[in-house]
């Protein structure tokens, strides 16, 4: 007699915990052939707001950690991804990828975490400056995190796309609320379990699954979100997001993964992606005896 499998309930990841959506709603996630894979949480505005509160609360602690420490935590994410590679690949396969494609995507995901882990204590050196002002002042400029960032992950690649967009955000000391791929959320949601076991402090990364058409406008309108990455927003909806984002002068960033490609070694991963979510702070102090 075959053993009955224990199925996994896919939930949200907010403030280091795995709640169901407070709305109690779900939406069916189906494989290419139409078979039901899971009933995912259809996250609500309230879930998003809870995630923003968690992200704001976590932000100063996260950016206050040493760059070395943040780098180690990102590297730890890579380690845990590696040890859970089979599970993540299995989810990608169930969502339609071939075994080879799934494994290639997982490898790229792991390498991307390692890549950004290494940047944690270097981008400020490459992009900060000491400025030779014409007067007796010491003057320097350092990058600082923009704050709380909303990321709309692309539909595909569902895992590499998510990771490629959130890794540069968090390595720079921001906290993030990410809306996962709507059609293929499984591996993305499982990443929450990776974060939870990788010493990522609660609230630094929050994952919300659901319908982008209802979630994205709320994320774009939220007055305590400082920047939004529209990479995974449908083309026809981008203009509306940009308009809404103006309400609190959000920084709006878009990565055209479809035409650049998610494997592009110079542009799909780059310190300039970190800078997209950094402010420049310039400090003046007089010099004298």
């Amino acid at each position, binding site marked *: 007699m075959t053993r009955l499998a224990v199925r996994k309930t896919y939930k949200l990841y907010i403030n280091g915990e795995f709640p169901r959506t407070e709305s109690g709603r779900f939406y069916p996630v189906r494989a290419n052939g139409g078979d039901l894979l899971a009933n995912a949480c259809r996250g609500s505005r309230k879930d998003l707001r809870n995630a923003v509160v968690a992200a704001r609360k976590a932000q100063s602690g996260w950016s206050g950690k040493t760059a070395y420490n943040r780098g180690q935590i990102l590297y730890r994410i890579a380690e845990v991804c590696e040890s859970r590679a089979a599970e993540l690949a299995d989810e990608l396969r169930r969502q339609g990828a071939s075994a080879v494609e799934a494994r290639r995507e997982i490898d790229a995901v792991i390498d991307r975490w390692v890549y950004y882990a290494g940047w944690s204590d270097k981008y400020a050196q*490459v992009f900060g*400056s000491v*400025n*030779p*002002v*014409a*007067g007796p*002042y010491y*003057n320097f*400029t350092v990058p*600082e995190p*923009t*704050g709380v960032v909303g990321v709309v992950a692309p539909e595909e690649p569902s895992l590499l796309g998510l990771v490629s967009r959130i890794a540069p955000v968090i390595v720079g000391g921001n906290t993030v609320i990410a809306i996962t791929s709507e059609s293929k959320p499984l591996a993305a949601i499982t990443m929450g379990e990776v974060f939870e076991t990788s010493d990522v402090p609660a609230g630094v990364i929050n994952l919300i699954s659901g319908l982008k058409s209802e979630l994205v406008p709320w994320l774009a309108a939220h007055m305590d979100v*400082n920047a939004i990455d529209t990479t995974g927003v449908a083309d026809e909806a*981008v*203009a*509306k*997001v*940009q*308009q809404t*984002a*103006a*309400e*609190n*002068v959000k*920084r709006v960033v878009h990565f055209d993964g479809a035409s650049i490609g998610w494997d592009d070694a*110079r542009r799909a991963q780059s310190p*300039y992606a970190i800078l997209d979510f950094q*402010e*420049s*702070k*310039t*400090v*003046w*102090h*007089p010099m004298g005896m």
Partner: protein
Amino acid sequence: MTTTITELETRERLQPGLASSSMLWEYAPSLESTDHVRVAPRYELFIGGKFVEPHSGKYFETINPATEERLSEVAEADAEDVDRAVKEARRAYEKVWRKIAPSERAKYIFRIARLIQEKSRALAVVETMNGGKPIKESRDIDIPLAAAHFFYYAGWADKLEYAFPNRNVAPVGVAGQIIPWNFPLLMAAWKLAPALAAGNTIVLKPAETTPLTAMLLAEIIQEAELPPGVVNILTGAGGTGAALVAHPDVDKIAFTGSTDVGKRIQRAIAGTKKKLTLELGGKAPNIIFEDAPLDQAVEGIINGIYFNQGHVCCAGSRLFVQESVVEPIIRKLRERIGTLRVGNPLDKNTDVGAINSRAQLEKIRELVDSGVEEGAEMVQTQCTLPSRGFWFAPTFFTGVSQSSRIAQEEIFGPVLSVLTFRSPEEALEKANNTPYGLSAGVWTEKGSRILKMAAKLRAGVIWANTYNKFDPASPFGGYKESGFGREGGIHGLGPYVTLS
């Protein structure tokens, strides 16, 4: 309740030593001559290297806000003119500017810097006449800094690949730039210099109330023999700016001005490929710890808020004083504002000039009235203000609550709100409690505290034991609703390049 400096002087007579003797000094007027300055009776639009009449045939008057006298009239550009200018800019971009050797581009920009230096005195006088700012400020700050900006960015033109490691650098294309009235020529320099260095062509719109130095700059650009169409200058009001923002062949918009208009621009370009930088409003905290050098701090407070009549987006308009030093700081502040000489901007002794426009004066009055109504205590100098022109006496409020309008809204005038705090944590909490984040000041002798405060204040520019310092090598720009993008320094190139 309102106490005035006159009352303070009365008490001084009864109680010598209360106020410093310097406040009683009178200076003989020392007027900057204007005989060497030529202001034309009318200015046309600068399009394609020529001065041309506006499509509508309309002109508007530009005045001296210190006297309300007419100085000249300038053309009002409409959407047709914007289209003409953008076409010229596009043509110059495709045919000339993107193609010439970067080292040659640099030399044109150096020429502009030199010509500004040569004509600095005339530029300073016109800036003061048209904008109301004290001559010593336009002479010593605005004009030299404008020249310095061109000089700084000129040198970048053939070195751009060093600014963006591992990237190919290309210009963006045609930039539409909209600048404010508080530092007219300097803002034009901040906008034009990096854009030109990176190989872009430009349509620049100066502010409605301060067009004159921009038109003198157009003459300089002609004299420098910049290829026609590389820089086009369109005078006009909000409608001209809106047409520029909306033009489909503009690749990049750079705007300095109010947060309200900045948001409108951000909305207007939604759905387009236009790049955007915004340098918007502020409500900067200036934080005085008890161990600060108090006399220097008071100078910093005065400079922070009364410099340029408070028409400064980074003005230190919220003063936070540690409770233990509130009494001496307020006393010194009362004494010091009594010594500020308010009056004829062309007088070389003048510290505080005219308010830039009647509309701005009314906005300041409205907010100050709200402060009085909300119960804050107002202190104002009782200097004699000229009978004509737009004037507002240097003012500060004590007993201001964090929630009151004068502590929340940008006044953009010579009005300071004084608040207090006990601990550094409280100062940070209050200082950061604003949608703005352009600048901040910190005054303390404790080095570790300076660095911690500088790190924790959410603002783009931190002045520690100084205030309102600017330099072309020093990036400037805001966090949060004070905008995004930087002007100045290596960081100021970013908005004008495309990387691949």
